[in-house]
């Protein structure tokens, strides 16, 4: 068994940022484990522009953004292993990984940061009936085939789900000469960024059907078409509105799921809403010394926020290794009135009052609302928003003073105040 102070699982933007900041906080004994052949995570296949506006004030491609962080990690001489898949993290922070080079290795860590990203929801999870031939892809798989491997998945395309990856793939497939017939979205709104709807669909005259879904997939060997239908208020397909669209490819962009198998092994408590861990403001889970950040914690739309969150995790993990003992008393933050979730999920009832950023999402589209944070029912923070939507994560930046009020309160609530 090898001993390492800080093991980081995943070398995507989250893991890289966490490593960098842990190093800068004084921690030198760090090991990043990454299962792919390169660092950079999902960014490596996102060759479009639009990354880094917040962090670097310029528009970068995914690989460019990743390389900035990779450079930082390399510059600091932080150790990383590639082609190394972590297969287990135990409750007492033993990390087991396998690689062709090293075989099976067990590492005893003082702290572990889980930064394993997320995966896409597959067809089965939304249970579309029909045939099971070739031609049904999750949008991310199609993205990898096109951008990394250089193959075209199909020519006549229907996309189910208006998540960002679906929108971006609509444009990408169009560039590659395929014809995108439609994007079909179950909800009456998109879960993707507004800018992506404009730049990826509107600019190419690709229709977006809200309140529609795919009810059946035809074609024995290869997709020959899909049946779509409008849905009612309860999201149930309306039979009379069914219609057939011939196509050879169906891309699914129906959501991302944090990849928390390792967390489960480690007995980390998960949130049913985010699919990620329940964490405090230090991004520590219920298992002492195990942290989470990035898409494994909750799905972010912008990588800039992943980096910022993960830098926080890196510093806190370094603190923990240096002997800062976690507080046992917690306040659970309650989300009400249309707020779907908030990260952190709990607050330590300690006396550390530092500025803190909260990330939250709403459950529906709301107009003219105020995002509010209440301590024992009293508003300590409020921000008016003309419109909020599930597709855009909201940031709430609290001062040390505001954090003090929250930490001293018995109840903390994040809510939407509606109306003028």
């Amino acid at each position, binding site marked *: 068994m090898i001993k390492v102070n800080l093991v980081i699982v995943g070398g995507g933007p989250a893991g890289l940022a966490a490593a960098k900041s842990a190093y800068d906080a004084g921690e030198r004994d760090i090991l990043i484990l990454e*299962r792919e052949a390169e660092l950079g995570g999902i960014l490596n296949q996102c060759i479009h522009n639009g990354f880094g506006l917040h962090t670097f004030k310029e528009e970068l491609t995914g690989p460019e953004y990743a390389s900035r962080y990779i450079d930082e990690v390399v510059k600091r001489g932080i150790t990383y292993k590639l*082609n190394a*898949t972590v*297969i287990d993290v135990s409750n007492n922070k033993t990390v*087991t990984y*396998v*690689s*062709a*080079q*090293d*075989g*099976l290795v*067990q590492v005893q860590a003082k702290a572990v940061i889980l930064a394993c990203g997320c*995966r*896409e929801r*597959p*067809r*089965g*999870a939304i*249970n579309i*009936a*029909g*045939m*099971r*031939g*070739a031609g049904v*892809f*999750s949008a*991310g*798989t199609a993205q*990898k*085939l*096109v951008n*990394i*491997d*250089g*193959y*075209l*998945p*199909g*020519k006549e395309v229907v996309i189910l789900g208006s998540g960002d990856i679906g929108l971006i793939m609509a444009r990408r497939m169009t*560039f*590659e*000469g395929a014809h995108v017939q439609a994007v079909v979205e179950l909800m009456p709104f998109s879960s993707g960024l507004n800018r992506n709807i404009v730049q990826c669909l509107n600019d190419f005259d690709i229709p977006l059907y809200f309140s529609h879904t795919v*009810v*059946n997939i*035809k074609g*024995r*060997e*290869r997709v020959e078409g899909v049946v779509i239908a409008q849905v009612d208020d309860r999201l149930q*397909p309306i039979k009379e509105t069914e219609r057939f669209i011939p196509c*050879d490819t169906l891309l699914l962009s129906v959501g991302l799921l944090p*990849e928390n*198998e390792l967390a489960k092994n480690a007995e980390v408590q998960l949130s049913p809403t985010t699919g990620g861990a329940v964490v405090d403001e230090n991004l520590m889970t219920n298992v002492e010394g195990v942290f989470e950040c990035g898409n494994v914690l909750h799905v972010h739309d912008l990588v800039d926020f992943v980096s910022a969150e993960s830098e926080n995790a890196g510093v806190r993990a370094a603190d923990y290794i240096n002997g800062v003992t976690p507080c046992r008393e917690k306040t659970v933050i309650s989300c009400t009135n249309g707020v779907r979730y908030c990260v952190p999920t709990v607050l330590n009832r300690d006396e550390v009052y530092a500025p803190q950023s909260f990330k939250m999402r709403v459950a529906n589209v709301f107009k003219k609302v105020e995002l509010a944070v209440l301590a024992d029912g009293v508003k300590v923070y409020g921000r008016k928003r003309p419109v909020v939507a599930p597709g855009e994560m909201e940031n709430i930046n609290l001062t040390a003073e505001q954090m003090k009020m929250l930490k001293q309160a018995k109840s903390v609530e994040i809510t939407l105040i509606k109306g003028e």
Partner: protein
Amino acid sequence: MKDVIIIGGGVIGCGIARELARYQADVAVLEKGNDVSVGTSKANSGIVHGGFDAKPNTLKAKYNVSGNAMFDELSRELDFPFRRNGSMVLCFDEAQIDGLQELYDRGIANGVRDMYIIRGNAELKKLEPYVSDKAVAALVVPNGGIVSPYEMTVAYAENAAVNGVEFRFLSEVSAISKDNGVFTVTCSDGYSEQARVVINAAGVYADIINNMVCEDKLHITARKGDYVLMDKTCGYLADHTLFQLPSKMGKGVLVTPTTHGNILVGPTATDVDDKSDVNTTAEELNEAFTKASITVPSLARRNIITQFSGLRAHLDTDDFVIGESTVEGFYNVAGIESPGLSCAPAIACDIAARVSSKLQLKEKLHFQAKRKGIPQFSKLSNTEREKLIDQNPLYGKIVCRCEVVTEGEIVDSIRRPVGAKDLDGVKRRTRAGMGRCQAGFCTPRIMEIIARELGCDMQDVTKLGGKSNVVIGRTK
């Protein structure tokens, strides 16, 4: 000229091939698909039935009870997943408890042992904690089991091939004639071969094959059953195979663990006109799930990972047709609907015995009865894993994250006799792509491995043979 041609590479055809491989004979299997186990044998409940359900004195009853008894040894010999988890038939209505007794009596008449009836919800919950509060009694059948049907079929085929049986794929038999005691079997691609004996194991198509040769016509109806497969995280919800006692509400569906720890619910039953119609429908999937919830109310839709359907080969006479037909040398193994999988080992031995005595075949001196399956990385201890990676570094490369399948296993599945040639073939042999992400991540990687191993281009890699190519060309 062959001694024997077997038409169909399902569990029946492959099972017979394996048992015939014990003899000095030239045997070939013709399969119209790209692989073995692409018909009903890949899409069923995977239950090794106890034998209480079939009517006494039918072929179904006879082969079921004798087939069931063979599974322990066979699964060890051929190294495929099998577990005697026991079955339970649940009764939800005091007024229908007699129905359980009836099944019990039928079981006794068929020769099923060790069955018993338990009463009271509390007693049921001791065996199955997550069963509905409304269940009042159950017939417990300890000898019921579960098997991985496609892995069993693959194991049969590999072992047959190792012992000299030839497998020919994409070979759809389109005509059979007989001259001077010799059959000529022709395929739609123009291939033709002669044989002294022909065995019809064509599943739902067995009527068509029979009707090419025999005056006594058969008629098979394809009866579709839809299934829903749940994530392993809810695997704890059932340990026995849980049937519902047929009632005025209909036949009911089952809830069962699979040999890999998922939960399977279904099947529905709908007659379809098209024998290739394995189209699942939203209505039937919903029916399967809703009915299953009667047995285990805590099943949650969000844990569904995939769905599929299979076709029962239902003969009008409601029993199997097994044996030599009126045309000498032409054997039918037709109408093999449920419990056909459970019967397969017994049917295979029986047919092999009859054919060998017909052709007066001699046993081989060096029949290799044992087969070793693909080492499963996910099931090994850490020490075994270390050793395996040491021997072959490809076992240190994890390709399918959800099921923890390594490149070593995938390469093995392709290089073996009767190896995988497409994504579904790799999936059935290794489970790569069968987990909760359903091949999202690993598809491109597995395609690369297939292309490399078979020496073809990525563009030629298919999902299930034919025109099921995964990609259609290169990007600009």
